[in-house]
């Protein structure tokens, strides 16, 4: 029993409290505070790594990651449109959610590795930032086509200046500019409290997830299947990418988790403004009601297993040659 991280229990506690319709509630301002700290911390971690390593070393990896950020929603879209029979806007919006990443899921994966003493490349936090945005742009194009009417300046504004992306980028630049020693003085708030803040965040996500569960039956079985199969497939892609980039087992598992995760902060906000005709309940039900709990409860250990076995496979192959 001890093998489940306490932050996961916080999520389950929130889920239970929400499902039982308890009076337990976090004020939205506290949710804002907690998610701000989470986003800033992850941005800071990514930025510190940028400061630690020569930019040229990271650049090739960064290019590949951004490229995958553009590709992933393109894989999801036809499935949603042709098999799921969703309309164009809904398909595009859900595809954008799954192409992008979930900061909460990332944080849980990091906690998982830390608890087990599994090493991973610290610059994974940088990948979170990189994977956040491309899927949003692809989603908008998928919904509207490359029409000239699209006000790309406005879209760019919405995407880059949205709360989630701003906090991540702001943390990234501050971490980069200050470097590891500069950030030390603010580490008690941003780093020491991180797991506790994550626990509160997951408690709130549990409460919110519980309200999403109600919409589940309305949207039927396809959404449930999609919300479980997609992370599995994307995690395989992520494992392959991680191994191809030469990441460690821990790093590969985290990258697989990122691919498998679906956004519920930055992308919903951007879609609501840029693809308003998409039904937000649909994508949130899938990403928050199904994929998020699936990933943090079952996915992460599984993706860790993917990464370990993927690497053993590579090693064996190399020996065989």
């Amino acid at each position, binding site marked *: 029993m001890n093998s489940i991280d306490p932050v996961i229990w916080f999520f389950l506690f929130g889920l239970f409290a929400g499902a039982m319709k308890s009076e337990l*509630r976090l004020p939205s301002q506290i*949710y804002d505070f907690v998610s701000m700290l989470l986003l800033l911390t992850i941005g800071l971690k990514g930025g510190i790594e940028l400061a630690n390593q020569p930019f040229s070393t990271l650049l090739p990896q960064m290019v590949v990651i951004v490229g995958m950020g553009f590709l992933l929603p393109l894989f999801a879209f036809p499935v949603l449109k042709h098999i799921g029979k969703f309309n164009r806007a809904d398909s595009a919006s859900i595809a954008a959610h799954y192409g992008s990443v979930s900061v909460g899921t990332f944080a849980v994966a990091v906690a998982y590795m830390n608890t087990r003493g599994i090493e991973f490349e610290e610059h994974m936090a940088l990948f979170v930032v990189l994977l956040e945005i491309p899927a949003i742009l692809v989603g908008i194009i998928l919904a509207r086509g490359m029409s000239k009417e699209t006000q790309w300046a406005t879209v760019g504004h919405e995407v880059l200046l949205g*709360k989630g992306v701003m906090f991540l980028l702001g943390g990234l630049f501050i971490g980069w500019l200050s470097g590891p020693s500069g950030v030390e003085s603010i580490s008690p708030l941003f780093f020491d409290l991180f797991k506790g803040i994550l626990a509160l965040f997951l408690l709130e996500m549990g409460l*919110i997830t519980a309200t999403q569960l109600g919409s589940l039956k309305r949207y039927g079985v396809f959404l449930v299947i999609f919300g479980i199969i997609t992370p599995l497939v994307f995690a395989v892609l992520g494992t392959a990418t991680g191994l191809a980039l030469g990441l460690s087992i821990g790093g590969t598992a985290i990258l697989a988790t990122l691919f498998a995760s679906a956004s519920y902060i930055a992308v919903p*906000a951007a879609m*609501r403004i840029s693809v308003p005709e998409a039904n937000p309940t649909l994508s949130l039900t899938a990403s928050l009601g199904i994929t998020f709990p699936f990933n943090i409860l079952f996915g992460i250990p599984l993706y860790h297993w993917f990464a370990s076995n993927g690497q053993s496979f590579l090693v064996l192959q190399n020996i065989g040659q």
Partner: protein
Amino acid sequence: MNNNNTKLLTIVTEAALESRLINDIEQLGALGYTITNARGKGSRGLRSGSWEASANIRIEVICGPDLAKQIANHLQKKYYDNYAMVTFTSDVEVLRPNKFSD
């Protein structure tokens, strides 16, 4: 209170629309507005206000009857299809009616 021809237009809608709506309202000629945070339920389901995605705002605009009608119609055309939104209008008396319409 010397005037009965001023309207209070109230809009309840998604918080995500705040900056857009303010833009629209000001461009149509409103000289002011008041916003409070809200939550609620309507035809588009429960909006519990527990996080950004489910937060509502309540915008009040005091203005002349024509402008009230114009704003309401504009919002209906532009947002009703895709957003949780309700608008209603009532009569109010103000001390200096010319403060609220050019």
